[in-house]
């Protein structure tokens, strides 16, 4: 086993976030344990704790799955089933794993984990092939617009490393993914338990010509996933020092959602529609010549115009919609009360807050069959539907498929203050 050392030189590393999904027992915990183990991201005390538990339970070998506190263990202990975040690094990349449990009831978790993911890793058991849940996982990844998809066909050791088995599953999944407009897809035959095709290519699969899983994770090209075309800078906070040394300073702080901003650019501020020019883009480390996602910067403009949190800086020729009537896919996340037509909620969209009333539910989507039920009148926990809503103040919005930052919003219950839904804008009117 060639293991990758933890990097000591951080400058050349970038960051990849990925979500994992699989049905119970497909080997997700084993795979994550394996990735952490093989990249030396585990510590002896963690390993010892797992060895002790393994022994106590009478396991024949150290169960790597225990490292990540698998779903079964959580159920036994009655812990809330939730997204867990894990970290590992190789000399090329730092990885953040959003480990999401796979059951149908946990659509909420999968949607949450996928919302920030650059890549999603879906596991299937080679003996079982694609199951309903694999299709659902693929659908949710496409709904959340995760740019890269990896299907790991696991437990290849239990099907004699059969090329036929692998290809049948790969073909079936590829055909399904094409229907979903799933973007970049890679399929890898692995054994999480034995480590085949995880760090390096396995001799057991001479017919497989693709990369090992880790090689793919390290090299998949994510820089171009960012939208560098549409300038969108939601104003987060206005910096106005109350100081005798710095006077007349007014800077608009925020994180670039998309596009590239440069000093000298002509910009438009929404919702007012005023135009101005960028004087400078500043950071605590000095001015920069360009700002692009995901940089947090402070933008200064030539004109003294009234700009506050929730406004958005864009280009006069390329602006988002300023809209109060929104069509969105909403995933409902509240177990206590369903989404109902006529109900009012608070909305958080970029740095902007609004209230909204649900005008209509066009259909509820069956996430397994993709069947649309137009007779539905409400959305319950873990259900997804297409919803029409009207907001009290305009949102400065793009379609989610074009922009994951200016196209996504959360729905908040005004009584309990809980986050009860996730919305992806389909259309603005």
């Amino acid at each position: 086993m060639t293991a990758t050392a933890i990097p000591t030189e951080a400058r050349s590393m970038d960051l990849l976030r990925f979500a994992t999904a699989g049905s119970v027992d497909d080997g997700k915990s084993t795979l994550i344990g394996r990735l952490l183990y093989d990249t030396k991201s585990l510590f002896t005390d963690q390993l010892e704790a797992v060895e002790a538990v393994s022994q106590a339970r009478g396991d024949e070998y150290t169960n790597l799955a225990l490292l990540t506190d698998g779903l079964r263990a959580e159920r036994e202990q009655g812990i809330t089933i939730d997204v867990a975040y894990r970290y590992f690094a190789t000399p090329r990349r730092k990885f953040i794993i959003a480990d999401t449990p796979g059951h149908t009831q946990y659509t909420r978790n999968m949607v949450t984990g996928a919302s920030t993911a650059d890549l999603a890793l879906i596991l299937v058991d080679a003996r079982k092939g694609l199951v309903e849940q694999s299709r659902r996982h693929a659908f949710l990844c496409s709904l959340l617009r995760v740019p890269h998809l990896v299907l790991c066909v696991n437990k290849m050791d239990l099907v004699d490393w059969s090329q036929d088995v692998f290809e049948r599953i790969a073909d079936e999944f590829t055909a399904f993914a094409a229907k979903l407009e799933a973007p970049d897809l890679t399929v890898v035959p692995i054994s999480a338990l034995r480590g085949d095709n995880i760090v390096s290519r396995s001799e057991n699969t001479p017919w497989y010509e693709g990369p090992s899983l880790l090689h793919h994770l390290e090299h998949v090209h994510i820089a171009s996933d960012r939208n560098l075309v549409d300038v969108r800078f939601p104003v987060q906070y206005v910096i106005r020092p109350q100081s005798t040394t710095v006077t007349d300073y007014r800077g608009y702080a925020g994180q670039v959602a998309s596009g590239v901003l440069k000093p000298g650019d002509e910009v438009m501020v929404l919702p007012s529609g005023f135009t101005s020019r960028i004087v400078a883009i500043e950071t605590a480390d000095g001015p920069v010549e360009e700002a692009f996602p995901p940089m947090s910067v402070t933008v200064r403009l030539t004109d003294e115009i009234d700009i506050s949190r929730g406004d958005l800086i864009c280009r006069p020729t390329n602006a988002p919609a300023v809209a109060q009537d929104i069509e969105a896919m909403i995933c409902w996340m509240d177990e206590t009360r369903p989404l109902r037509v006529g109900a009012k909620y608070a909305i958080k969209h970029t740095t902007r807050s609004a209230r909204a009333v649900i005008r209509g539910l066009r259909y509820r989507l069956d996430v397994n069959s993709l069947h649309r039920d137009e007779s539905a009148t409400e959305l319950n926990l873990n259900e997804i539907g297409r919803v029409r809503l009207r907001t009290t103040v305009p949102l400065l919005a793009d379609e989610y498929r074009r922009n994951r930052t200016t196209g996504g919003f959360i729905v908040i219950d005004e009584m309990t203050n809980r986050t009860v839904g996730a919305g992806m804008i389909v259309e603005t009117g």
Partner: protein
Amino acid sequence: MRQPAAYRVSHLDALEAESVFVIREVVAELERPVLLFSGGKDSIVMLRLAEKAFTPARIPFPVMHVDTGHNFAEVLDYRDQRVAEMGLHLVVASVPEALESGLVQESADGMRNRIQTPVLLDAVEKYRFDALFGGARRDEEKARAKERVFSFRDDFGQWDPKNQRPELWSLYNGRHHPGESIRIFPLSNWTELDVWHYIAREKLSLPSIYYAHEREVIERDGMLYAVNEFISPRGTETPFPAQVRYRTVGDASCTAAVRSDADTVEKVIEEVAATRITERGATRGDDRVSEAAMEDRKREGYF
């Protein structure tokens, strides 16, 4: 001016941008934030990020230290110096004072981890803080892997695992009713190594005990404890000099040192990269009680 190389963003830049975003979000949406500043390395990094978030303005919130009374002198000096340099307002929530007033009582084992929670909550109530920045990271401990960036606490300051809000995209929900509060962890996605790389990159000064130095220690339960006013040899324990450093700086009565020759930030990074034992496992006597120790303390309102 810094030149972008094909719009590359290093992992440290990405982490920094995310943390700065989180800190600004809190100031924009919550009424009375406070940053927990202990003089430990994570809180030092957090303070630096807060400074970056608001320049050229000052940090628009005070800092708070929950003082157990069991301090490393070097850390307390560092705290005061940093607060003065940056012109910050420091609130001290003092465990010794709370012992005196009867708010809390010393626990049987003399450890002050549990009793600092009511002291913290008392200060939160007194100053009506509704947002508390903490330096905890998700990689520290299994129980933290599911912690939110915005972690909701009820009006008793308690963490209810069943009542946490899903966090999607970068849309954080800080809404709460009066009396409730939010703990915010801007370093959620950082690892110990990221923190050290950042300390090196930003040339942040740290309390000297983070670097290798010689100290009188005793060995107890396989860990090295400094002999000081809080820890003295028991039974057959004999003090001896050793070259050590601290990986975490907690309560001086239960934080252990590790053997180390790493006396510069570069050497510490090398050491951390090669170390095969977690920060907490190596140095926190208080976490060794049980696997579930952290989980229990969190429910009660501990960080």
